[in-house]
């Protein structure tokens, strides 16, 4: 764990690299909505340079704090940065500093308290984590079964929000259809900590990481899968660093695991006569490097006409739902989502898929708001639909 002085020195050094060229501006979803230079990544770095390198503490105003938290952490600025700055890491460090200064957005403080109390991001007790199972008639979901082949880490959104329950239901149905011996953690599953990391609260994540990893290790599984892109990123990129050790089991996103089942013909898909496009979740694509498997799954369904959006893979646009933006400015988050669903609709697709429960939820709301003839589904939901139909 870095001390606050080490953190500030790191921010200072990183901010010094920025040449203010502004390549980051036109790809930044927040800048595109707000429009003022103050919302562009280069300006945020320029202010960080003033505060941390030139020690002009007065520049750390409430407006500065607001702008730093108006970010989806999509990482597209890092992709295009002419100076090669790892901007996503910088934003996280700056949020850690904001928290240390007591300038964190009140909704994020509230969320941290919530996670501490219930071990999830909702207001429901963690014992309700498996409520989504109640609607499954033909599938029996076993909890914390030692000796299972695979553990399925559901994630808070699919566990608690009825709108996203279809994702977890589809994933277990697919696993069941492929005769995979899997188990879930039930109330022993705690929030992975991603929302806390995104609000600069890495300190609180340690306990969550230790708990979750211990519980999965106790199951003796070879593989952990998750349908949540942010959980996946946290398990693969953050936990090993936070814990300072190898996890001892493989972590895969559900789309990676399911693609493996298709390749070995352990799972065969059905037919879907629709034009479908795919939205790369930032935490799965750009921030974790998984682009191919979701596309492989979609194209494995007979009859499906797959079309790409202009902004895809490394240069995919954000859905607006990342980085806790909705907690800081819901309208801004929604405005970004609207741009993305418009792009999806312009491809002629009737179904927009993604591989992230947060993206799906955000895009669904935007499509509804825009009254677009566009159904938004998780890839796994569409896979299961192909079998049901």
């Amino acid at each position, binding site marked *: 764990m870095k001390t606050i002085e080490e953190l500030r020195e790191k921010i200072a050094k990183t901010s010094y690299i920025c040449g203010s060229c502004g390549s980051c501006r036109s790809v930044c979803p927040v800048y595109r909505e707000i*429009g003022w230079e103050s919302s562009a990544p280069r300006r945020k770095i320029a202010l960080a340079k003033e505060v941390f390198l030139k020690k002009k503490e007065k520049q750390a105003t409430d407006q500065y704090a607001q702008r730093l938290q108006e970010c989806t952490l999509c990482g597209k600025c890092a992709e295009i940065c002419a100076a090669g700055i790892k901007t996503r890491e910088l934003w996280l460090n700056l949020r850690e500093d904001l928290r240390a200064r007591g300038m964190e957005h009140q909704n994020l403080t509230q969320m941290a308290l919530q996670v501490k109390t219930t071990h999830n991001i909702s207001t429901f007790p963690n014992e309700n984590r498996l409520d989504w199972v109640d609607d499954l008639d033909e599938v029996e979901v076993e909890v914390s079964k030692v000796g299972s082949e695979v553990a399925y880490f559901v994630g808070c959104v699919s566990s608690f929000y009825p709108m996203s329950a279809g994702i977890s239901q589809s994933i277990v149905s697919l696993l069941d259809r492929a005769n995979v011996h899997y188990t879930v953690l039930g109330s022993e599953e705690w929030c992975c900590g991603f929302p806390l990391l995104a609000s600069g609260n890495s300190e609180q994540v340690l306990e969550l990481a230790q708990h979750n990893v211990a519980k999965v290790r106790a199951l003796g599984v070879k593989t952990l899968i998750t349908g949540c892109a942010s959980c996946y990123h946290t398990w693969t990129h953050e936990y090993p660093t936070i814990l300072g050790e190898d996890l001892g089991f493989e972590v895969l996103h559900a789309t990676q695991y399911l693609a493996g089942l298709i390749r070995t013909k352990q799972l065969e898909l059905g037919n879907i006569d629709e034009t479908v496009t795919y939205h790369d979740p930032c935490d799965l694509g750009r921030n974790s490097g998984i682009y191919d498997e979701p596309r492989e799954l979609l194209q494995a369904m007979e009859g499906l006409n797959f079309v790409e959006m202009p902004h895809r893979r490394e240069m995919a646009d954000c859905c607006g739902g990342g980085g806790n933006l909705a907690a800081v400015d819901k309208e801004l988050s929604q405005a970004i989502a609207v741009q993305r669903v418009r792009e999806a609709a312009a491809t002629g697709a009737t179904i927009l898929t993604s591989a992230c429960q947060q993206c799906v939820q955000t895009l669904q709301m935007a499509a509804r708001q825009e009254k677009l003839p566009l159904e938004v589904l998780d890839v796994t939901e569409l896979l299961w639909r192909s079998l049901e139909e």
Partner: protein
Amino acid sequence: MEQALQKICGSRATTDPFELAPYAHDVAYVPAILVNLLTNPLPKAVVQPISAEEISSLIKWAKQGKIPVTVRGGGSTAYFNCIPMKSGLVIDTNRLQGFSEIELDQGSQKKMVWVKAGMTWKDLDDGLRQQGCAVCSSPSSAPSATIGGWVSMGGLGIGSVPYGPIHDQIMALRGVTATGEIVELSRPDKGPARNNGSEQSGLQFNDLMGTEGTRGIITEIKLLVRDVPEKEEHLLAVFNNETDTGAMMSWLGGEHFTSLYNVHFSSPEFIMSLQKAGYAHEIPPGKYSLEIDLEGKRDEVDQAVAHIRKQVKVLGGTLLPDEVGAEEWADRFKSLRLEQTLPSLLAAEMTLPVSNFAAFYERLSKLGQKTNTLCVTYAHLVSPDMALVMVLYPSDELNLIRYIVDLSFTSNLYKLGHSLGGKPYVIGFWNTPYLGKIYDKGERERRRQRKQAADPHAMLNPGKGYNPPNIILNSHVFGLAMIMIGLFRPMVLKILKGGQGQ
């Protein structure tokens, strides 16, 4: 003021100091002591119009109150080109977005589009490529530079060898004059230079080319575009010395390959700085590299590649594996990665005859050695016989004295370039002392006359492009000051040896 502007632009107008502050900056760091001595860069208001009509209303409003107006695109230049000298109103064009359907001119069989001024070159190119077309040329800052911005600057960059400066690719443009009239101007050889409504202001087509928003404001241009080429090849050749590298550049320009799209030079120091940051490891240390980009019909590209391979060998060079060239091309907008090694750079950018490139580089190396200055150079071929050269050198913006004495080295670089036929690339504010090196007396006078005709009250981007705006920037005074400051530089560098940026 905010109320008046909000009547025109709604919430796209601000006088909030937090929002205004970034509009007093471009990519260059200049110490506040110098900026405040010479300018008043903080605008009183910033607006983001979405149409020519709104800009027209803004100009008419500003004219009534005698408020200076500075237009800003991507803010990606380094000479205060888009920074107000006398505060006033900044018109941020970034909300002028989008382009029309691609038109085919039946006579010339050329394709063209109307594109709005606030789009970035990369966004336009990406959009065109979805329809099988591409921009002909673009700045090396294409992800940030706007259409209107680059047209208002020098317009030289990637693709300029076959297609010429951007000004050659513009068929017509729409804009707003200093009196607030909305005009459409066709290219002089394609029709009357002065169209509807422009007689009163006297604005002409060329008034909006490379004049940094000092005579009118561009809102939309009609731009030639090309079909996406059948084939691309990106070669990376390395040479042992500047003589062979310069000879290769001259040969490439002289051969007039129809498929030669771009040539990019990187000095050994530039490569070394990238390598220290973890990049460009495929390039052998100490070599001079030329990225040679070919685009066009398959057979034309193949023929050119065969000739180039032979010539590289003749000049003692080596072609690196194809993937190295492809990677260099993919990273063409990422030159600033060298700031990971050298975070506080000063620079001089100039056009230079290719025939003098080797001599320039040789003398630059000697100058660098003599003054204990690491000079990091890259360049683009921008015509068969002209290169656009960027020389960067490290300083330390955290040390005011060091930074100020280092600024004097820029004038040494321009002096060196001038002795070999070079000229500063753009003027803006900081290069006004070099106006005499850029234009001859007659051209300077003609430019002043056009400014007077188009903007008699000097309301648009005052202080740029025509006369040094104050005595300190007078070429003689400035030149003397640079010599004096330069005299202190060795001493300051010696005292600060080992400081940041060395």
